[in-house]
């Protein structure tokens, strides 16, 4: 019916094509200025957090284990949207007012850190104990063995699940629209609220998300091939 109404009316068709064209630029702007930087920055910080959390979980020190467990449990046990609201709308009540983008980065980093830490923990534990011992036997310290021997091998194991996390994150950044970050989806909302062509504009945004994620899976395939030079 919607399609009928479009093609039956050449004037409306022209208007829709025009809207699709003119909204492309602001949507891409939102993607390039906010969605993509938000994703990349949050993922990098999240990954560092995740490695630290994973190491804390497998460390011998009870205190680190407990801190890591509570962190992962709290983040996984509460909705991301609620976390973002606490950071952006809640913290000002105790005098901490953050820029929308910064709030979003904090929220997403914490989220990635918790979810990815489980992936990295499993990957580290999947590397045979003999690899640690071989590193130690040539005089390496814990840190050297971790950096040179264990993490590179764990990276290979964790690449597919981490790619999943990354792709999810691209889409989750749309939640940042609700804490006033003018990322791609917020731009879409702004455009749609002026011309009421919700179906068209939101679909256009969805297609752009899809394109971004498609490229990411291509990169994932490429990385997997590169890390597969050695078979283990």
């Amino acid at each position, binding site marked *: 019916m919607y399609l009928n109404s479009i093609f039956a009316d050449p004037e409306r068709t022209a208007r829709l094509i025009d809207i699709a064209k003119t909204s492309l630029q602001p949507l891409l702007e939102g993607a390039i200025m906010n969605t993509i930087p938000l994703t990349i920055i949050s993922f990098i910080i999240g990954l560092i957090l995740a490695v630290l959390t994973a190491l804390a979980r497998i460390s011998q020190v009870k205190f680190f284990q407990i801190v890591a467990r509570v962190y992962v449990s709290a983040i996984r046990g509460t909705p991301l949207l609620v976390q973002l609201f606490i950071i952006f709308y809640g913290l000002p009540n105790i005098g901490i007012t953050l820029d929308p983008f910064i709030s979003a980065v904090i929220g997403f980093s914490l989220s990635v850190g918790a979810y990815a830490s489980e992936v990295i923990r499993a990957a580290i534990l999947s590397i045979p104990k003999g690899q640690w011992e071989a590193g130690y*036997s040539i005089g390496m310290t814990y840190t050297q063995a971790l950096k040179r021997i264990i993490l590179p091998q764990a990276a290979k194991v964790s690449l597919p699940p981490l790619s999943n996390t990354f792709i999810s994150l691209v889409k989750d950044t749309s939640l940042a629209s609700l804490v006033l970050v003018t990322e791609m989806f917020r731009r879409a909302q702004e455009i749609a609220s002026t011309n009421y062509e919700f179906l068209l504009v939101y679909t256009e945004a969805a297609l752009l998300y899809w394109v971004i994620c498609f490229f990411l899976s291509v990169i994932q395939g490429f990385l997997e091939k590169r890390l597969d030079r*050695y078979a*283990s």
Partner: protein
Amino acid sequence: MISIKGLYKQFGQLEVLKGIDLEVEKGKVVVVIGPSGSGKTTMLRCLNVLEIPTKGVVSIEGQNLDFSKNVPQKNIASFRRLTGMVFQGYNLFPHKTALENVMEGPMIVKRETKEAARKKASALLKKVGLGDKQDYYPAQLSGGQQQRVGIARALAMEPEVMLFDEPTSALDPELVGDVLKVMKDLAAEGMTMIVVTHEMRFAREAADEVIFMDQGVVVERDKPAEIFTNPKEERTKKFLNMIQ
């Protein structure tokens, strides 16, 4: 010289080493034999502190670790550098080529330049007969070749003593010879070696001394000619009868 004094190791309730005393002079080759569960591997792993002994003193060329007290991590790392370890399962780094495996220690632990490490690694791989396999990944090498890379990797740290933990047990029979030959060459060059193995021929031909362990203690030690033909202890006789 290497010495072990009053070495005990307990895993939970299980006492694996019950007071080992052992001295190995520089340049000597000592082969350790004994039934499985006798503690020979554990003793070897205590020597390079992959296992922390419950108590006892180990010393290599004047450096001591006394495990009756708490030993700081830093001392353990520097002590380990005196020993080279060859594992039963090779434990090569699968994400690095043969050359990179051997370079890793000199480059990262000894902080030699990449060029110096590469030169040294390349020479060592030639020495173990793998000059043409430098750029192969472990998965592309046979078990015997992997184990020889393992030996080269340990040698690259220029250890005072080489420890071999059943280096040929995981190998197909036809590949054992190449590894044993490398070990014999090392012995002939005067490397101090402690070898846990079931290869009695190697023990006969290359060892200065054979040690028989059972149930966490050294039962008997003697020259190979003596221990194989004329064992003094009942337990040694029984074991040798079983494997021959």
